[in-house]
Each structure stands twice: as structure tokens, then as C-alpha cells.
């Protein structure tokens, strides 16, 4: 049944008792507010042992000798295991994808073998009865290292004089991509003004409140591995655990209950987690590992750390003629498995200039190895950088032309009636709403009044700035993201919906819940498409034994892809239930509908039969149904976007802030966001995704930085020295919406998880520069914008 919705004749989203577009509270929240969640950190199993890792204090060193006798004798110790021991149980991996042409990396082991390549890489595992005893014994392990030269500066990583980290690869170049679209040289030549600068984006990391955690339980009798894992992608991990431990996938069950924050941190393969799983197999008992905060800082993937040389050409009347970027990023000693560490640079090439219809665009991105912690995909992958570069250039050009930054944007943003269209980098846009979003933002923030107020307070020596950042966001990825490159990461997702014996609905979904509200969205969708109050829907996620195969929750895919699968499954179950009801009532299925948990006459809405009665008859008195009729009270549907490789969304943000020109401190006053994620299933959840994302973006803009010295030592691996946004420094954030559904699905929902993070850093940077420009300050093009950076721009230090 491919028509939009039958048999009511209403459009899909307007069904009676629709929950689409309603701010329904999430079903799992009461439990979490009472401290009755079940995070992996909370899991305890019989005979469970704990592992602590001895980690390399050097960023690059040969492991000469490991002395474990004293540790093995320590109280409570069960095993002390080296990389070579563990390699017998767990094979190494290489983080490459075939569609990122030329991307190369070296085999990485669960525990370092022969050589440690970054400070914090695990070298020895100590398993004991408790974590404290394991840590005690870890202190007794003696390792003799021969320090090797550390490659830390991305700028010189490719120089002939620089040692090659993996000699077998030939050089330190992980990946390079170039792009040359339109007539870039001609366009720059014909420009009236060219602005050129270099942007620096600091390394930062996710700092999930619950650190990474895993409890692995190999049952030798059952020959099955159960892994309680705080992951965003249970089926991906099932495949990887099986592959590297020599098991069939059906021997592996991954269970993901509550996850204390993820943001892309928990979607990768971590060596210490693989080691924990391998140790369970080796020791034939459950083994638990929870990263402590210092371990999180030196082993959770880092992100960003890009140096982007960039220029923009404009005509004197404000038409953008060309963009050019040269991006360089250092990603640590290994490309992270299985999503690789080439994606962020690749995204930057894809996304720069994205909101503008400029056909002339040249880009080069180089990704290099270095002896620092690994880098990989973190919330809004590449977007914050591409947006800050693009919007930073646009603002610098506007300032040089003496144009209002809003006017320059209005002149160049892709017109709302230009779709479908594409970008110079080859992205395909189904339908975006840049101008409608900008108009809405300007109204929300009362731009004219704000400019007047800015001028007014400036006269009193108060320096406020207003900054904008328009952006596009990649959501609902198809197989084009990973599948085509050979990674076994599902882009499709499934949902199974069944009627229980009292007429309630149980939905098993392949997407996962890490706080975004996927459970609520799935429940809303199923309640609507099937026809029951939401209280009658229970959603089950995060269990590879009990959910349809799916990708999980990342890249803003849960609502758009998992939601559509659930929508279709709900419809299919409705058709099945109506077949039963029609048989009981001797009516035509088409004349019936399900509304508010009852079978009703589609035309009049008159109740004919409760769902509890349908279930009772189908389950307990099927003998009363006509001969040959079999009730099917469970339905499964899958969905993957096919018409478009990605559902692009768009939006724009504005930051209003005040800079203390004596101290360099930035005070955030207001922040506005207008975004367009298509059909809004739950407005509150979308707003909250945006707000949380904005604050993560603000963290990058002002606070967060993994500081390394020249030897590759992380200098601030704790929460006292690595600053994260706290309540007192954050502004209220106003969120507005423009709604442009995708026609690729019946729901029309696109993703919203990364919009906030994508735009905030650029908006804040532009606002700081807007505040400082009249003072003759040098434009700030580096993040985080610390007080020192501000004072340096003002020439005060």
C-alpha cells in the first residue's frame, strides 16, 4: 500500500489522535529522574572481574620489556595480559573505507604490540576482583620503553625530515582530497575584493558525563558473548566483536540500556573496549571496564583540530564569486575503525560554501598521522568548521565592503525557489529554506533594535557584537555514507510492532536512545500510525537479540529513518488488525479504522470493537475465526532513504554577546536559532536537541581545547583544566522553525541533532569580531576564543 494513508482519507500526519507535532514527554524520563536508570556503569554480573589498563606515558615508544610478576602476585589479581597475549584472541583492524580513495592506515591492536603510538594507549591489562585492586596491581607492572621521535605538528608531518609513524605506509599522509569546480582563478581575478585568512580550530572532545563503559560476558557453555555496551550502534558492534573474536554474529548479543551521553563519542571501536571483550573470552567470565575521566581525555576520540587557509572573492555590490580552502588536520596514529578519520576533512570539503549558490570552489584537504590521541567523528562532523570558515569569510568580506552582514547573506543565499539544486562540491539539495529562515531569525531577534542598542551602549564603552552563521546539515544518511565504502554499518533501519494480549502495542526498533528522545519519537509515530493513545505503546531499543537490524542513532538519523520504519510498521499492523476485526465484524477492512485503541467505522468514527477484544479473540479464541483465516498481530517494516543520498537541512543562528576589552572575557547575552528539519514530530525534543547542540558549539568556540605539548603529552586531561560549558556562562537560547518536509518519506522528517553544534561556533566568532572591529582589532579566526586570544587581537598582549 503505497498511497499516503488509508483508509481514513486523511493525510498521514492528520490522523485522528495524531501525536505528530506534539510535545509529548519522553516515556523513560520519570525513571531517570528517580535515579532508576540502568547505565552500563551500573551493571554488575555474577563472577564479574574488573580490568584496569597500564597506559603508555610516552606518545611514541618501543615496548622493550614488560615485567608482570609482582602484579600477578598482588591481592585479587586474576590475570595480567599483554598485547601479544591478547592478539591470540582478538585480531587487529584497519580503519579504511574504499570510497575515500587513497585513505590508508595501519593495523591497530586491542592492546599495543611492540610499540605505543600515543600517550594513553593501553600496553598491559590487569584484571582483578575489583577495579581498585586492578589499579593497585597495575602500579606494580614495570614496562621498559625506548622513546621514539614523536610526530606532533600536523604542519610538518609530511616533511621529508619528519619520521614516518608507520614506515610500511611510506609517509604520514592518511588521506587527501582535492576539488576544483567552476572557474576559480577567473572568478578571483574578476572579484573586486578578495579576503584571505587562516582559521585554526582547536582539538576538543565529547566529555560524555558517563564515560565509555562495557561489560563483556563470554559464556563458554553457551558459546555466546553478551556485551552490555554504551554504544550508539549495537548491530555495528555485534559485527565487529564477532569479526575480531572469530565468532559468528549470532553468537554475539549487544545490549544497550541507558547511555550517559554519546554525541558521536560512543559510535567508534575503542581498543580498550575490544580488549575488555577479548579478556572475557580469554578468562571465560564477565569483565567490566569503565573509563575514568583521565582515560576518557586520552582515549575518547578527539575532533576538529583543523588549520584551514581560506579565501573568498566578492564583487563590490556584494556578490560572492569564489571560495577556496586548504584544510590540514592531524588525526593521531591510526584512522579510527570502522568509520575512519577521513570523514571530517571530507565533510569540510563538501560543506564549505554550502548555503550559497557559488559555482566556483576549489578545495584541498589533507589528513595526516601524528602521535597524539586518535581523532574521529564527533557531533556535527565537519559542519562547525565548514560553517565557521564560510561564515567567517562572509563576515570579513561584508566588513571590507562596508555592507551589513545580513544584506550580504540575503544577496547570496540560495533562493528558496531554486530547488532542487546542487552545490559546487556536488551535494544535492531537495529543498531548503535559507531565506525564510533568515527572515524568521531577523524577526525573532529584532535585529534593527539590537543594532541600535549596540550603537547606544558602544558610546558608553560597552562592546557588544552580533554574529550570524547560516548552515546546512547532513541528515538521514543513506548507504552513501559508509556502506558503499565497505563498512558493515546499516543505513536502513527496521521496526517490529506487535499487539499484546490486552491491545497495547510493543515496538522493537533498531535505533537507539542516548537521551535524544528516540523512544518518544518512535512511540509518537507508532501511536499515530496504528491508532492508540501513546500510553499504550512501549518501545524496546538497544538489544541485537530483540530488535530488527539497524544502524542505531547517529548522524541525525533516528527520527527520519527509524521513525519512518516505525510509521510503516504501525500502518502494516493496523492493516493486519483490521483484517482480524473485519473478519469478526463481517465488515470490509476498508470500512474500518483504528482510533484511540478501538476499531471504529472509518466514516462515522463509531466504535465497533476494542483492541483488547480483538487481541482476546485472536490469541485465545482463534477457533471462532473463519476457517483458513490466520491473524497476524505482528508486523515488521524497514526503511532507507532512496531518492536522496542525504536529507540536507538548513538553518541560521545568531549570537549576541559582550566583550570585556580589559580582561578579554566574553559574556554571552542571547542566542537564536532558526532551523528546518522538515516535519517536526516533537517540537520540544527538536528544540532541546538544538539547544544542547548550540552549547556544545559554544564550548568549542570559547572554552574547550585538548592542549598538547611538542612531545605529544596532553597537558589538561581533567575537568578542572579542560573547560566545558557550565550553566552560569550559558545564555538562554531561542529556537524557531521553518518546516520543509522531505518527500522521500511519508513522515517527511529530517534530522535535527547537529544543527546547533554546526552553527554556534561561527556565530559566536562573528559576534566577537563584530564587537571588536570598531576598536581596530585584528579579526579573530581561531578557536577557542580565550581571553588571551581576545587581548592579543586587541594588541594588549
Amino acid at each position, binding site marked *: 500500500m503505497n498511497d499516503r494513508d488509508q483508509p481514513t482519507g486523511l493525510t498521514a500526519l492528520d490522523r485522528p489522535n495524531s501525536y505528530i507535532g506534539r510535545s509529548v514527554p519522553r516515556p523513560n524520563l520519570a525513571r531517570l529522574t*528517580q535515579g532508576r536508570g540502568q547505565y552500563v556503569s551500573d551493571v554488575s554480573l555474577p563472577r564479574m572481574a574488573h580490568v584496569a589498563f597500564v597506559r603508555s606515558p610516552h606518545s611514541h615508544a618501543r615496548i622493550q620489556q614488560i615485567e608482570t610478576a609482582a602484579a600477578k602476585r598482588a591481592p585479587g589479581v586474576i590475570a595480567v595480559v599483554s598485547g601479544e597475549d591478547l592478539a591470540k584472541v582478538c585480531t587487529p583492524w584497519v580503519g579504511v573505507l574504499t570510497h575515500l580513495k587513497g585513505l590508508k592506515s595501519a593495523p591497530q591492536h586491542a592492546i599495543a604490540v611492540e610499540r605505543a603510538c600515543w600517550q594513553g594507549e593501553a600496553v598491559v591489562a590487569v584484571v582483578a576482583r575489583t577495579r581498585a585492586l586492578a589499579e593497585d596491581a597495575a602500579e606494580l607492572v614495570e614496562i621498559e620503553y625506548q622513546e621514539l621521535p614523536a610526530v606532533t605538528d600536523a604542519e610538518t608531518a609530511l616533511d621529508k625530515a619528519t619520521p614516518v609513524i608507520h614506515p610500511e605506509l611510506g609517509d604520514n599522509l592518511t588521506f587527501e582530497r582535492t576539488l576544483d569546480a567552476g572557474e576559480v582563478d577567473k572568478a578571483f581575478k574578476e572579484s573586486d575584493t578578495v579576503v584571505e585568512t587562516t582559521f585554526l580550530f582547536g582539538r576538543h572532545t565529547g566529555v560524555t558525563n558517563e564515560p565509555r563503559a562495557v561489560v563483556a560476558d563470554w559464556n563458554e557453555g553457551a558459546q555466546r558473548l553478551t556485551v552490555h555496551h554504551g554504544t550508539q550502534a549495537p548491530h555495528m558492534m555485534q559485527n565487529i566483536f564477532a569479526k575480531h573474536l572469530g565468532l559468528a554474529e549470532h553468537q554475539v548479543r549487544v545490549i544497550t540500556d541507558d547511555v550517559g551521553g554519546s554525541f558521536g563519542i560512543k559510535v567508534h571501536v575503542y581498543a580498550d573496549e575490544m580488549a575488555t571483550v577479548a579478556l572475557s573470552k580469554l578468562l571465560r567470565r564477565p569483565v567490566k571496564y569503565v573509563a575514568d575521566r583521565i582515560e576518557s581525555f586520552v582515549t575518547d576520540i578527539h575532533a576538529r583540530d583543523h588549520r584551514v587557509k581560506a579565501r573568498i572573492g566578492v564583487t563590490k555590490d556584494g556578490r560572492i564569486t569564489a571560495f577556496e580552502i586548504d584544510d590540514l588536520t592531524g588525526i593521531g596514529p591510526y584512522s579510527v575503525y570502522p568509520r575512519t578519520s577521513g570523514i571530517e576533512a571530507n565533510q569540510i570539503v563538501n560543506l564549505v560554501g554550502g548555503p550559497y549558490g557559488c559555482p566556483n570552489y576549489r578545495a584541498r584537504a589533507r589528513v595526516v598521522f601524528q602521535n597524539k590521541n586518535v581523532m574521529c567523528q564527533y557531533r556535527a562532523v565537519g559542519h562547525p568548521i565548514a560553517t565557521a570558515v564560510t561564515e567567517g569569510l562572509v563576515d570579513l568580506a561584508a566588513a571590507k565592503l562596508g555592507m551589513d552582514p545580513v544584506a550580504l547573506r540575503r544577496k547570496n543565499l540560495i533562493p528558496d525557489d531554486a530547488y532542487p539544486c546542487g552545490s559546487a562540491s556536488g551535494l544535492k539539495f531537495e529543498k531548503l529554506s535559507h531565506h525564510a529562515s533568515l527572515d524568521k531569525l531577523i524577526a525573532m531577534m529584532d535585529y534593527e533594535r539590537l543594532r541600535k542598542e549596540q550603537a547606544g551602549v558602544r558610546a558608553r564603552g560597552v562592546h557588544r557584537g552580533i554574529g550570524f552563521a547560516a548552515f546546512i546539515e547532513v541528515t538521514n544518511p543513506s548507504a552513501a555514507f559508509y556502506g558503499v565504502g565497505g563498512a558493515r554499518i546499516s543505513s536502513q533501519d527496521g521496526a517490529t510492532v506487535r499487539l499484546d494480549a490486552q491491545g497495547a502495542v510493543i515496538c522493537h526498533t533498531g535505533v537507539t536512545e542516548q537521551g535524544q528522545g528516540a523512544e518518544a519519537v518512535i512511540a509518537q509515530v507508532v501511536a499515530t500510525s496504528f491508532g492508540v493513545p501513546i500510553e499504550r505503546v512501549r518501545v524496546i531499543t538497544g538489544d541485537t537479540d530483540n530488535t530488527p537490524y539497524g544502524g542505531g542513532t547517529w548522524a541525525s538519523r533516528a527520527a527520519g529513518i527509524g521513525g519512518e520504519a516505525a510509521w510503516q510498521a504501525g500502518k502494516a499492523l493496523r492493516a493486519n488488525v483490521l483484517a482480524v476485526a473485519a473478519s469478526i465484524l463481517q465488515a470490509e477492512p476498508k470500512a474500518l479504522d483504528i482510533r484511540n485503541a478501538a476499531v471504529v467505522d472509518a466514516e462515522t468514527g463509531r466504535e465497533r470493537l476494542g483492541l483488547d477484544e480483538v487481541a482476546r479473540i485472536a490469541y485465545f479464541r482463534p477457533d471462532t475465526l473463519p476457517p483458513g483465516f490466520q491473524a497476524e498481530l505482528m508486523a515488521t517494516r524497514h526503511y532507507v532513504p532512496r531518492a536522496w543520498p542525504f536529507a540536507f537541512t538548513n538553518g541560521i543562528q545568531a549570537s549576541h554577546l559582550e566583550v570585556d576589552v580589559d580582561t578579554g572575557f566574553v559574556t554571552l547575552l542571547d542566542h537564536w536559532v532558526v532551523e528546518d528539519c522538515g516535519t517536526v514530530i516533537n517540537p520540544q525534543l527538536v528544540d532541546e536537541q538544538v539547544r544542547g547542540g548550540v552549547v*556544545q558549539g559554544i564550548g568549542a568556540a570559547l572554552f574547550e581545547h585538548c592542549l598538547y605539548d611538542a612531545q605529544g603529552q596532553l597537558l589538561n586531561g581533567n575537568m578542572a583544566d579542560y573547560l566545558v560549558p557550565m550553566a552560569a556562562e550559558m545564555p538562554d537560547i531561542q529556537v524557531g522553525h521553518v518546516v520543509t518536509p522531505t518527500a522521500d518519506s511519508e513522515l517527511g522528517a529530517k534530522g535535527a541533532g547537529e544543527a546547533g553544534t554546526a552553527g554556534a561556533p561561527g556565530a559566536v566568532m562573528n559576534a566577537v569580531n563584530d564587537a571588536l572591529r570598531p576598536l581596530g582589532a585584528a579579526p579573530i579566526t581561531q578557536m577557542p576564543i580565550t581571553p588571551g586570544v581576545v587581548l592579543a587581537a586587541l594588541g594588549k598582549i
Partner: protein
Amino acid sequence: MSAHEITLTVNGEEVREAVDARTTLVDFLRETLGLTGSHVGCEHGVCGACSVRLDGVVVRGCLTLAVQCEGHTVETIEGASDSGALADLQEEFRTRNALQCGYCTPAMLLTAAELLAGSGVPSRAAIREHLSGNYCRCTGYHAIVDAVEAVARARAGATS
């Protein structure tokens, strides 16, 4: 490691256990008593996820040793929930989606309750200041401030 026997009251129940001197209060609560509603985030007093009440005052469970609690009274989110004292705040957090992953939430609730125990309706800035020792990576804080403000207003309205 020498064990020390301690006696204390946890969520209204007397507890007698042997603990190592180095065992933190939050590890004791989570691992010995199974009260996993208190969470461990940074173990150096910055993130606030381990906050519990000690004799009615919110403290960091990771900076307090279990042996220091001999003879004292500890209340965790489990106890505070069952007492009903947080019900209005919990409901406001739920309806405003003032939590996403929920990991910071038990401690955030206890800390907010401390502010709400005072009189009057605190300003948004005062709410933000009071919660500034509790790290939340998910929400961006706006909805949390909304929830606390709403409860303060409701309670003030109810008593005025």
C-alpha cells in the same frame, strides 16, 4: 587495605558495613549498597554527578570518604524520590525535557532542591549560578533553568 566498620543512616535505613579507608562515599553507595542513582563522572569534584545529601547538605560523593560518614545521615536520589519531596521538581524536569541522557539528573535535582528550599523565586541568573557546579552535556541548561524557575514560582504561589 585495612577495613573499617562504619554505621550510618542511608535513606532512612541504618547500614553497617566494612569499608576500606580509601573508599569514596559514591563508590560505597553504588558498589556496596547498590544505590546506582548516584553517578560517577569525573572523580575529582568538578562535574557534580555524584552529589548526595550528607546530613541534609549536598556534598560531592567523590570527594567524601565513606569512613567520614560514620554516624551521619546520607540521602541519595532513591531516598529523596521515595520521600516525595522532589516530586514537583521531577515532574517539571520530565514535562520540560530538562534531561536527555539523565546521567547528571539525580545530582542536578538534589542541587536544585537545595536552592528551592530557600524562600522566594530566584532569578534565572541565580539559578544558573547555583547549578554552575553540575555539568550537563546534553541540554544546554536552558530547560533545566526553566524547570527550576517554574517550581519556584509554583511553590511561591502555593504559599502566598
